[in-house]
């Protein structure tokens, strides 16, 4: 009885907190830093999506930290789960004909869509993380339809480390050619709203997408192939 009452009180408490959020106008009171980003961000960095320019350039070091956190998670999963000695792939039930032919039709579309998301990160909502997750979902569909799919874990970790390496290289290039670490103005800004604009943001987002996608595929492959 006491438990029920406590649950009810918690719900009422959160309702009181959350209900005023319905009337929030996202533009009413901004801090001075946010005002500066909104006023100068589009002219300074040339990206049509302001969130992208904040995440990649103004707060680029935070994004680097997030990718490092994801890398540590992958390493932890690979460290904790033991490798299976005898493969028990034939114990799993095979998928049906419709699922495998539908997969062979849909997986290229999913990969293409993931590439679209991370190369258009400076124009549409989306970016490296979202595109990487979409690509990992395509590989996941392959795993679900094909029980004997083998992963080359060495190749995955090589792709992941090289994309991380080039990400850091671009960041250091910003120190020499432009204003600071991870500055995107090392290339010309281009026309506002084109695909080839906003300096290094599309390149950084492509590297991020490849890195996140290979890390998530590594986690899923480790989960499947372990005991």
């Amino acid at each position, binding site marked *: 009885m006491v438990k029920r009452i406590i649950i009810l009180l918690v719900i009422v408490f959160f309702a009181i907190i959350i209900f005023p959020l319905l009337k929030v106008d996202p533009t009413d009171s901004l801090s001075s830093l946010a005002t500066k980003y909104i006023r100068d961000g589009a002219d300074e960095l040339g990206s049509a999506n302001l969130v992208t320019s904040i995440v990649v350039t103004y707060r680029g070091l935070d994004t680097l930290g997030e990718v490092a956190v994801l890398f540590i998670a992958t390493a932890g999963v690979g460290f904790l789960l033991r490798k299976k000695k005898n493969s028990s792939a034939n114990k*799993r*039930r*095979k*998928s049906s004909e419709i*699922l495998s032919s539908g997969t062979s039709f*849909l997986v290229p*579309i*999913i990969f293409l*869509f993931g590439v679209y*998301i991370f190369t258009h990160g400076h124009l*549409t*909502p*989306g970016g490296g993380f*979202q595109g990487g997750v*979409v690509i990992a*979902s395509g590989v*996941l*569909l392959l795993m*679900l339809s094909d*029980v004997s799919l083998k992963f080359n874990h060495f190749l995955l970790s090589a792709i992941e480390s090289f994309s991380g390496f080039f990400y850091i290289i671009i960041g250091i290039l910003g120190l020499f050619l432009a204003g600071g670490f991870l500055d995107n103005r090392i290339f010309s800004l281009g026309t506002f709203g084109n695909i080839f604009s906003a300096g290094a943001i599309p390149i950084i987002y492509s590297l991020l997408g490849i890195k996140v996608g290979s890390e998530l595929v590594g986690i899923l492959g480790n989960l*499947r192939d372990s005991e």
Partner: protein
Amino acid sequence: MAEIIYNISAIIALAGMIIALYRMVKGPSIADKAIALDVMTIISISLIVYIAAISQKIIYTDVALVYALISFIGVIAIARYLERGL
């Protein structure tokens, strides 16, 4: 006039979502709950495009594209788990 009909359509779709939730609460087997999840996904894709239309922002439809392409993988994973193929 047309806006009122659009709003009525969205409310009917929301009512469909509530009915699907009732099947998810009640559903005797796991497969019933997975069907309810499938129907709720489809109705939410419709609602996302409705929100994109009435708030006059084209880029919101990208979220619906991600939904239509990704969310069926979850249902397939549940099915493969049930038939011991995961």
